[in-house]
């Protein structure tokens, strides 16, 4: 395993060097913004998005405290799936009609999103109900 690790590190440094070298040799003034965008990506993810998920996740966990653990996970999973599909659809909704090419973003992505969220809600509800019925009827063990 030691040799494999050495090879991986050397290969990794080599590949990364190709990328850094390429950026430096094809440098343009606008690339000065790249470090800023990289730092911004980390900040938005680590400093905003993840803390938000901990906050929302904690709240959801308390709200669903009456449910069996497996049913509880279903509800929270449904909420996360809703959030993910919404976040991914928002750029398409905002961008629709802006590009002067009728074959780019040809659909009504807001309606599509609402249908998607409807399907997620129904599937989540069914899965949750199934889990509630299957769960042993025992209360007071949840934290």
């Amino acid at each position, binding site marked *: 395993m030691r040799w494999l690790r050495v090879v991986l590190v050397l290969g990794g*440094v080599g590949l990364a060097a190709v990328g850094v070298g390429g950026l430096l040799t094809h440098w343009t003034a606008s690339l000065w913004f790249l470090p800023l965008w*990289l730092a911004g990506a980390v900040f938005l993810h680590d400093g905003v*998005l993840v803390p938000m998920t901990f906050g929302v996740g904690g709240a959801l966990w308390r709200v669903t405290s009456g449910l069996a653990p497996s049913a509880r996970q279903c509800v929270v999973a449904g909420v996360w799936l809703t959030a993910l599909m919404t976040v991914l659809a928002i750029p398409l909704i905002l961008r629709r009609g802006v590009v002067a090419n009728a074959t780019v973003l*040809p659909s009504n992505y807001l309606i599509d999103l609402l249908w998607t969220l409807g399907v997620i809600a129904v599937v989540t509800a069914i899965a949750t109900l199934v889990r509630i019925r299957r769960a042993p009827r025992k209360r007071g063990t949840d934290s």
Partner: protein
Amino acid sequence: MSSITALRRIVDTARNHRLSPFREGAFAQRIHHPRVATVIGRALAVCLVWCFLTGLYSHFQQDPASWMSFPTRPVWLYRVTQGSHVVSGMAAIPLVLAKLWTVYPRLFSWPIVRNPVHMIERGSIAVFVAATLLQLFMGFFNTIKWYVWPFSFRHTHYWMSWIIVGSLLIHIAVKLPLIHEHWRAARETEARTSGWSRRGFLATVSIATAAVVMTSAGQSFTPLGRVAVLAPRRPGVGPQGLPINRTAKAARIDPAAVSTDWRLEVDGPKPLRLSLSDLNAMPQTEVELPIACVEGWSQNARWGGVRIRTLLDRAGARRGDGARVTSLQRAGSYSESELPSEYAWDDDTLLALRLNGSVLHIDHGYPARIIAPGRPGVLQTKWVRGLEVRR
């Protein structure tokens, strides 16, 4: 002395305060576990490496080194490589979010830096995470043609991919013992408690990834076209039932230049000057070939026209010669393309005059366009003005 005491107090608070993420036990251990990180991490690694390889293929198709030559069969090769490039990039979005969420507590490991090697390791992870997040964001936004960043998409996306795969290898090397230990699930069953189970978390991530793939793959995998709610293109939507990337208007095509006095100039040992009716009088070939865009969408279509090899033959070119294609297009960086000999002499490479049975729509390149098997859409030059034989 007092400043040292004050510093110690600050550090102590950071380490032990009830609300501090640096506190021991600040995060639930079960799903922020190396086993979860290993399972999600290896799926993510597959996506990233696949993106890198298919991306390289696409890059060298457009910018080949002189010694490179490309296969012309299967004709759907580029359709698959580039379609899966975009789909695996989309799949990487929920995977990277779940992976980073799982290892988020590591961000607050204590001490923050143990030694120089540890510092380099953390630095490499910072580069890896930053570049991957930005790369996926830029790739996604490129598919909807939304360029919100000030630098060039293509250059940055290309060079960053090397940095990402390089730092991925370093990351795997650092974590190898941990990956090895958690490659298979531990034998002991999970203790039943009320929190998230590992199985439940992994199932959620799998479902989320499957949902993103299902709803975005339809722009290149036609059977899923009806549920392609996250795909910027829909199969069948466009003039003559086919999407387009650059309209005639965007390319600033002059309608006068494509009128009846348009002539195809073939520059070779025996130069040719052919009108549209001359071309229509030549032997015609019909082929079914996909148009496959660098932005991931693709669709099959029936093309009719004259084989490029017939034109090159008549112009006195020798087998093995390539061709440069010039266009009437006045805007955009693809007003010229190279047709290396393997494509130029292929039986399926046409100067297309018809699409799906009717004369080319102006947005599809009327009066004539190139269609070759297994090439990126940007190289299927539209509004062709001439061909130059290249030795």
